[in-house]
């Protein structure tokens, strides 16, 4: 494979695409599949058969198109018309009226200026939901692997690292560590053997960005990893995919095989001296294995428990060797940066947080789905302009970012820009990109307890503050939830939060108290209403005036006020 070969594959495929009279793209994301995408595809195929136009029409399942809440989604080309809430029964009209007669179904199509799409800046998601994730040719036809070709043919590893550093790319897993700096540490490592690891163990509840990218454009991740491998001098990569995502595992496995077959992975890539292989490792349901040192243990076939850091994986990583560990979205940003340059990337976002961020917008918001916005966009824009506001005209209460390591941000902070520093200042974190909108039907005490129960059940058990501290925090929160907590309990809760945060071994424990701390900071009166007045205004908690009544009620009853 040479660069010329690559261009030729792309050109051939584009020619092939152009030969179709029309193209029907069906969203094949997990959500749309659950809502019946496969059946819809069969319906479109059989209508095309009946009409005798099947060979002229390309019917393709793509990755996530983004607007999950209105799925299943379907796009018709030419014209780029998106239809929402498609059923198999719609196939006949869409084929006859739109595809054959050229008259799109006005009443069913999404307006061209629908803000959910027009307010976004797709970089990582540029080709998502448009290309066939099972076709490497389709990826190549959209410029895929050109960045890798350019890198290994014309650029030095030092130059690539400089470019990534100049671009200001920071870890999209949530930590925000400068990617170029991390790569540079690994490159300087003296070991012969080095590794590149893609952390695709997306465990935050309410987050599905990685899943969508793995399922929708797996080659973009592989290309980023290969560039990283070249830059740091690694010959082996691992993608660690969450075991709960079987389709993502299949798509990624398939992508690796295809890339090997096309010699885009393997020995002497683009006839350079650079060789790079990627293996897939499947997680098995442990949230803590998303912590980088735990993840490395899991790849080594061990219990996915973390180690104290330092040393960091960039110095002592997989099998003790220097290892780059980056998140899916971070790798997906690499090819665009190499392609268009650091200066272009810097032009997006803010000074300290460059580029875009992908968010999984969900919860009590009208338009849920996968979005990508420049860093620095305000939360209000995301929730009200892109997301269309609160479901059923309800009123906004809080937005949760950063999952079990993050916090709930109230109305008064909705105008803060989405970037690493601003979110941290507001008592939350950027996190990997889960963004859950809550309205009055959510009780903040209950939400805090929910996250603590999550952390407790996901604690690996290695260090004492996390293993036992989270249990005690859960019990204290449950007492508040049941209306039987004392002022002393609140004091103990706050003290224990700080202690668990300060003394836990890894990020899971260190961040576990965050949702409680932020809820207490912004919604303290709501806590007080529970333990002083025995009232849960959202009607969620089983508040009772006595311990005995609380015990008897257990988790039953909603909103029993005393």
């Amino acid at each position: 494979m040479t660069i010329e070969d690559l261009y030729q594959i792309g050109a051939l495929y584009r020619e092939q695409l152009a030969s179709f009279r029309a193209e029907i793209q069906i969203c094949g994301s997990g959500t749309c599949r659950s809502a019946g995408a496969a059946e819809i595809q069969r319906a479109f195929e059989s209508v095309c058969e009946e009409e005798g136009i099947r060979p002229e029409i390309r019917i393709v399942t793509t990755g996530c198109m983004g607007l999950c809440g209105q799925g299943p989604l379907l796009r018709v080309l030419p014209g780029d018309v998106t239809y929402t809430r498609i059923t198999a029964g719609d196939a006949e009209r869409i084929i006859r009226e739109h595809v054959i007669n050229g008259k799109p179904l006005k009443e069913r199509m999404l307006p061209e200026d629908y803000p959910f799409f027009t307010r976004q800046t797709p970089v990582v998601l540029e080709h998502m939901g448009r290309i066939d994730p099972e076709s490497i040719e389709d990826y190549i036809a959209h410029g895929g692997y050109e960045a890798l070709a350019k890198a290994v043919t014309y650029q030095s590893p030092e130059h690539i690292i400089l470019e990534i550093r100049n671009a200001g790319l920071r870890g999209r897993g949530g930590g925000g560590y400068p990617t170029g700096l991390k790569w540079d540490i690994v490159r300087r490592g003296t070991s012969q053997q080095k590794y590149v690891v893609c952390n695709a163990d997306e465990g935050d509840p309410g987050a599905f960005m990685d899943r969508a990218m793995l399922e929708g454009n797996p080659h973009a991740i592989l290309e980023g990893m290969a560039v990283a491998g070249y830059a740091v001098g690694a010959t082996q990569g691992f993608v660690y995919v969450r075991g709960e995502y079987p389709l993502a595992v299949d798509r990624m496995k398939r992508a690796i095989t295809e890339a090997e077959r096309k010699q885009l992975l393997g020995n002497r890539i683009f006839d350079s001296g650079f060789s790079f292989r990627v293996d897939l490792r499947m997680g098995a349901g442990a949230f803590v294995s998303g912590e980088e040192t735990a993840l490395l243990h899991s790849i080594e076939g061990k219990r996915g428990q973390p180690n104290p850091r330092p040393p960091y994986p960039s110095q002592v990583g997989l099998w003790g060797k220097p290892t780059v560990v980056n998140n899916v979205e971070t790798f997906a940003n690499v090819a665009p940066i190499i392609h268009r340059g650091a200066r272009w990337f810097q032009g997006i976002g803010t000074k300290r947080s460059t580029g875009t961020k992908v968010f999984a917008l969900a919860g009590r918001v009208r338009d849920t789905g996968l979005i990508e916005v420049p860093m620095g966009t305000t939360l209000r824009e995301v929730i009200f302009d892109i997301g269309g506001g609160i479901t059923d005209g309800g009123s906004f209460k809080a937005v949760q970012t950063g999952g079990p390591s993050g916090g709930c941000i109230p109305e008064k902070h909705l105008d803060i820009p989405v970037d690493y520093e601003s979110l941290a200042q507001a008592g939350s974190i950027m996190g990997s990109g889960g963004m859950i909108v809550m309205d009055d039907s959510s009780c903040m005490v209950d939400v805090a307890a929910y996250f603590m129960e999550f952390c407790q059940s996901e604690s690996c058990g290695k260090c004492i503050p996390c293993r036992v501290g989270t249990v005690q925090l859960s019990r204290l929160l449950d007492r508040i939830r049941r209306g039987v907590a004392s002022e002393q309990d609140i004091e103990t809760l706050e003290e224990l939060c700080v202690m668990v945060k300060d003394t836990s071994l890894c990020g899971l424990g260190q961040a576990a108290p965050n949702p409680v701390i932020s809820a207490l900071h912004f919604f303290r009166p709501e806590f007080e209403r529970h333990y002083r007045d025995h009232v849960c205004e959202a009607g969620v908690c089983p508040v009772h005036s006595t311990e005995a009544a609380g015990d008897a009620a257990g988790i039953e009853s909603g909103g029993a006020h005393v």
Partner: protein
Amino acid sequence: MEYTPPHTDSRHKQLDRALSRHQGRPEALIELLHTAQDVFGYLPRDVLAYIADALSLPRSRVFGVASFYPLFSLEKPRAHEMTICMGTACYVNGAAALLRTAHEECQCEENGTTDSLRLRSAHCLGACGRGPLLQVDHRTIVDARTEDVSNAIAELQDPEG
């Protein structure tokens, strides 16, 4: 304790193929546990002993790993499995009520079993845009309501009716 060495049925052949693909390297433990679980539906003790010997790993270590990861099951599976997603988006859209209904109607706790059913809560299935999510065996129901839970349980318990 002594374990029965594996039979030479086709299921073990699949496991053996995976073993030889990984050339008995101990770091392949989790991969092999995945294979074994796919093949047998769970991780029987004699299979764990077999894998431990094949990879020259202590049995305690194999058990430690198998019991660490929630996706691995050390118990025989039930005929049916119902999973209710308790991810944040599902939670704020009422997943707790679904789980309560399931508890009541199955008369079993979260991650508990009846004769024919295992009831699980999942931490996030990654389809947050249409929560709450309900999975019944291999079928996924989006925007699930408590009726969906009741109907599914009734159906599983009385497949004829």
